[in-house]
C-alpha cells in the first residue's frame, strides 16, 4: 500500500511541476469548443444538435494529446526499470499510474465543461448525459490508450502513430456516448448506452493492465 501511495504521490508531484504541459490538453479542449460556435453560427438549434458530439470529439483528441506523458518520462529516466525491479507487481503500479493520469486530465475537463455546455446551448438533460458518458468513457480511453502508449514508449515521437493506433478503437465509445446524449436531448432513456459504455470500461479495466505490463516489458528489450 505504501508503495502504491508513493507511486500516486510521485506522479502528482511530477504533474504539479509540469503544470504548463498539463494545461495544454485542457486549453486545446476549450479552444476547439469555443471555435465551433464562431464557425457554425450562433443558431441554438444547430449548436444543440452537434454540441454533444463536439465535446466528445474534443475530449478524445485532447486526452490523446496528453496521453504520451503517461510513461514517457518514467521510461526516459529509468524509473520504469526501477518499478519493474521493485517488490510491487507492475500490474498494480500500472493501474495506479493510469488512474492518476486520468484524474489529472479529467478533473479539469469536468470543471470547465458546464461553461462549454452553455456555449453549445446544451439542455440540462443533455448536460447530465454528457457528464455521465464522460465519467464512464474517459477512464476507458485512459486504460486502452495506455496500451498504445506502452507500445510506442520506446519510439521517439510516437505521437501520430499513437493517434492512428487508438482513434479507430475509440469509435464504438464515441458512437454510444453521442447516442446517449442525443437520446437525452429527446428526453428518452439512455440507460442502455450507459450500460454498454460501463461494460466496456469494466472489461478494459480488468484486461488492459495486463496488456500494458506486457507492452512495457517488450519495450525494455
Amino acid at each position, binding site marked *: 500500500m505504501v508503495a502504491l501511495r508513493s507511486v500516486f504521490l510521485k506522479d502528482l508531484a*511530477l504533474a504539479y511541476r509540469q503544470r504548463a504541459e498539463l494545461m495544454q490538453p485542457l486549453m486545446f479542449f476549450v479552444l476547439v469548443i469555443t471555435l465551433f460556435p464562431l464557425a457554425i453560427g450562433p443558431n441554438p438549434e444547430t449548436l444543440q444538435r452537434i454540441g454533444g458530439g463536439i465535446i466528445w470529439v474534443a475530449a478524445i483528441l485532447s486526452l490523446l494529446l496528453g496521453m504520451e506523458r503517461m510513461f514517457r518520462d518514467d521510461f526516459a529516466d529509468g524509473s520504469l526499470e*526501477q518499478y519493474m*525491479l521493485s517488490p510491487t507487481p507492475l500490474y498494480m503500479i500500472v493501474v495506479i499510474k493510469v488512474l492518476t493520469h486520468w484524474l489529472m486530465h479529467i478533473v479539469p475537463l469536468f470543471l470547465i465543461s458546464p461553461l462549454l455546455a452553455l456555449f453549445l446551448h446544451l439542455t440540462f438533460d443533455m448536460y447530465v448525459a454528457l457528464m455521465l458518458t464522460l465519467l464512464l468513457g474517459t477512464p476507458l480511453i485512459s486504460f486502452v490508450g495506455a496500451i498504445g502508449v506502452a507500445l510506442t514508449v520506446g519510439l521517439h515521437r510516437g505521437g501520430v502513430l499513437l493517434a492512428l493506433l487508438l482513434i479507430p478503437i475509440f469509435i464504438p465509445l464515441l458512437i454510444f456516448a453521442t447516442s446517449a446524449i442525443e437520446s437525452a436531448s429527446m428526453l428518452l432513456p439512455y440507460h442502455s448506452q450507459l450500460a454498454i459504455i460501463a461494460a466496456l470500461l469494466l472489461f478494459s479495466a480488468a484486461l488492459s493492465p495486463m496488456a500494458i505490463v506486457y507492452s512495457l516489458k517488450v519495450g*525494455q528489450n
Partner: protein
Amino acid sequence: MRVLLAQQVACEKSDRQLFSNINIELHSSQLLYVTGENGAGKTSLLRILVGLSAPSAGVVEVNGHDIHKNVHDASEHLFYLGHKQGISQLLTPTENLKFWCQQHGVDKNDDAIHDILAELGLTGLEDIAVKNLSAGQQRRVALAKLWLKSAATLWVLDEPFTALDVQLIAELEAKMTSFLKTGGAIIITSHQTLHIDYPLSNLHLDYSW
C-alpha cells in the same frame, strides 16, 4: 550462499548474436567484473541477469527465484543501476529517494536520507530539483540508493563510475569492498580499472559480428 546462477544464456539483437552459452555462478562475497569492448554486450548481459530483458536462450536465477518468471521475488534483495539513473529530473534528491524507498520496501525516513546525501557530498542540495544538479551530482543521488538498500545481497552496477570525481570513486570502491566483506555479491562493468583490494573474477565478452 549462491546468489546468482545463469545457465546457457544467449542474447540476440537484430539478428546479431551478441553472446551465447554464458554460465555464471556467483556466491556471496564474490565480485564479478564484466569486461569487453563497446558493443560486446555487457549492458545486454546485465539487463538479462536482472530480468529486464529476456534472453534468447537460457535461465537466470537470483536468490533461488527464476528472474524472468518471478521478477518481484527475485529482485527483493537486488539492486540494479543502469545507464539510466532511475531518478526524476523534476523532483528533488530527497523526494526521489523517499519515493524510491517506499516503492522498494526500504524503511528509511527523511533524516536518514539527508544523512546519506550529506555523506555523498550533497549537503544543501537536498531540496533542489535534480535537473539543476551537475551530471556527477545526479549520479551521486542515484548511487545513494546503494547506501539506502541495506538488505540487498546482490548489486548489479553498469558503469557506476561514469561522471564521478576521483574522491567519490574512491568512496564507492570502499563501499563496495565493505559490502563484499559483509557477504554481498557484486556484478560490475566498467571501462575504468577497478582499484579494489579484493579478489575478483573476470568475465570477458568478445565483440562478435
